[in-house]
């Protein structure tokens, strides 16, 4: 797709104003939107039950084709990021490899009698022989100990990755085995909730809506670049790729850097940046409260180096590069201090604008609310119908959308290298800002402004916004994915 679509001129009949605050439209319009809206992204909003159904379909498919229990299918799907077809294909080639990779079977063959069934090695008591159980690895422990092990793990938030209790045994405990040992209803429920959350998190097509107490889950097929999804429940705008608030034209890595930087003022943020890092694989925030620099993420079990965040597996000999890097900040020179001062000035310039638009955006919410009641009053007083005043409502919503995009242009500009592209960007940004202020002014005086004039202004502002996004969002996405779109 390129920027030459003159098509949008004729498409622009007001319908596509709805996508920031309104209901989802039908597919026909969606097709047109993919041309006229540079932020268009195909996704669906699902309820928990629908996601459960979706996951169950994969589980059923796998358990039927491989003739295994659904619990084992879950362990395998979790390990293979829910790609059932890939598992089936690989299983047909080499079943053992798949089972070992998913930690269903131990790497080494089972040694008979490696654990006794006369004394439990964990609790050091001697329960009757029928009170022991073991997984595929053949490590027998008494049922009370298994139950206690699961309780401790579940209370620590572990679900899919609970392992066997034997030394050096990586075999993962399937759901049915856990549930056959855990009897407390509250604990069972907790476990199943964690399992579901873990499944959604490990599924590349799914993402929880980050809205507070929001139960909706997004489903989409692309996970790179700034991708706007809007929750059907809480109307929150989120980026599907990274889970942060939607941030076009800024890309995911940049917005993350920016938000961390902005939060730097508060004590919490200082603590977070000083004591925590994000897992390089699943981006969960990790606090290192002791121990060595070989970290294993508690959530995804990824091994990495705390110092450089590189993969631990490839790391061994390179460790000392990391420690050298750490020493650098000690040798601060005077000119660096001057540079820091300059950097702070630059940052404040962008931050003030970012903050200002964020505040305006909050105020737009109030504007929308008052506007709604004003229109209602007019309708009640017989001054036309809602349809007659619809354009005002549309204008206010458009204003909100434009401000949103404008706010997110600042982090983008902050991290841009100086050059003609930045000049172009800042030119377009200034244009957009000017038109937004015009629009805002006209909406405030809507009753005395000519309707045609206002609608014209709406059109100009939206054009500025889409032009900027077209030029810079698609450019970023094509860089991120390394392909032309």
């Amino acid at each position, binding site marked *: 797709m390129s920027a030459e679509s003159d098509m949008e001129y004729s498409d622009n009949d007001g319908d596509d104003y709805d996508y920031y605050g309104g209901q989802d439209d039908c597919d026909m319009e969606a097709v047109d939107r993919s041309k006229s809206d540079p932020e268009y992204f195909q996704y669906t909003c699902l309820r928990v039950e629908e996601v459960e159904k979706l996951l169950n379909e994969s589980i059923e498919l796998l358990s039927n084709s491989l003739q295994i229990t659904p619990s084992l299918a879950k362990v395998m799907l979790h390990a293979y990021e829910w790609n059932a077809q890939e598992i089936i294909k690989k299983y047909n080639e080499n079943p053992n490899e798949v089972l070992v990779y998913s930690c269903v079977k131990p790497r080494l063959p089972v040694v008979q009698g490696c*654990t006794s069934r006369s004394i439990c*090695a*964990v*609790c*050091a*008591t001697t329960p009757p022989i029928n009170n022991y159980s073991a997984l595929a690895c053949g*490590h027998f*422990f008494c049922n009370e*100990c298994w139950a*206690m*092990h699961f*309780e*401790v*793990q579940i209370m620590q938030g572990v679900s899919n990755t609970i*392992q*066997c*209790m*034997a*030394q*050096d*045994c990586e075999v993962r405990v399937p759901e049915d085995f856990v549930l056959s040992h855990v009897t407390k209803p509250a604990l069972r429920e907790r476990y199943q909730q964690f399992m579901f959350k873990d499944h959604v998190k490990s599924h590349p097509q799914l993402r929880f809506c980050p809205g507070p107490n929001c139960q909706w889950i997004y489903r989409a097929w692309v996970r790179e670049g700034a991708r706007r999804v809007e929750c059907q429940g809480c109307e929150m705008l989120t980026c599907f790729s990274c889970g942060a608030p939607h941030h076009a034209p800024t890309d995911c890595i940049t917005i993350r850097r920016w938000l961390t930087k902005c939060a730097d003022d508060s004590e919490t943020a200082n603590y977070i940046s000083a004591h925590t890092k994000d897992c390089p694989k699943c981006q969960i925030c990790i606090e290192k409260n*002791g*121990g*060595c*620099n*070989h970290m*294993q993420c508690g959530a995804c079990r990824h091994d990495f180096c705390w*110092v450089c965040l590189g993969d631990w597996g490839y*790391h*061994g*000999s390179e*460790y*000392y590069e*990391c*420690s050298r890097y*750490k020493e650098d900040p000690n040798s601060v020179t005077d000119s660096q201090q001057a540079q820091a001062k300059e950097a702070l000035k630059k940052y404040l310039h962008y931050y003030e604008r970012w903050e200002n638009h964020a505040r305006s955006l909050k105020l737009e919410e109030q504007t929308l609310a008052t506007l709604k009641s004003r229109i209602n009053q007019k309708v009640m007083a017989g001054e036309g119908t809602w349809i007659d005043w619809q354009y005002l409502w549309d204008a206010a919503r458009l204003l909100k959308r434009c401000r949103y995009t404008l706010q997110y242009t600042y982090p983008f500009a902050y991290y841009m290298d100086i050059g003609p592209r930045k000049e172009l960007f800042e030119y377009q940004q200034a244009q957009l800002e000017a038109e937004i202020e015009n629009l805002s002014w006209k909406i405030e005086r809507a009753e005395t402004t000519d309707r045609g004039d206002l609608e014209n202004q709406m059109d100009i502002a939206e054009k500025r916004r889409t032009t900027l996004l077209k030029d810079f969002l698609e450019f970023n996405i094509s860089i991120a994915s390394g392909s032309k779109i």
Partner: protein
Amino acid sequence: MANIAAKRIKREFKEVMKSEEVAGGAIKLELVNDSWTELQGEIAGPSDTPYEGGTFVLEIKVPETYPFNPPKIRFVTKIWHPNVSSVTGAICLDILKDQWAAALTLRTVLLSLQALLSAAEPNDPQDAVVAKQYKENPQLFHMTARHWTNVYAGGPASIVEFNQKVQRLLDMGVDEHDARVALSTYDWELERATEQLFS
């Protein structure tokens, strides 16, 4: 839960007491209180290592969820080792962290720690400064570790030159341990250590 923990610890305590390692003086285990929640371990520095002749005291705290969670262990005796923090005594050993298994025991843990003294894992370091020296200047590392063993763990007499350098800093009013850490960190270069201490 605490019931299992106490029962296990009691049994393990007996197991360690009867073991040949205790008889041979390689490891030792003592109770700190009556509740079986805190113990004190001791391991002898393995022969043919810079820790030979030293005795290293360990603090062992047993969590309520033991053995489903690992015991919390740190070196009380100061030690110069890539996998042990020279400041806090914290230990980097997989079985004390994510590789802990409920089937492991205090005896196996103590023996693993002793094995760690014989074979450091410089690629999985706890103390980056020590690990760097271990890798880049093994001979100096060996001498430094021996010096620490002598001073803190009762090992055989060590390098005279090191003692003299520590004394020089003591004369300047520096705390003895701080002086030793600075010198060890800066490869026993008196000038750099002094600079760091007084900066």
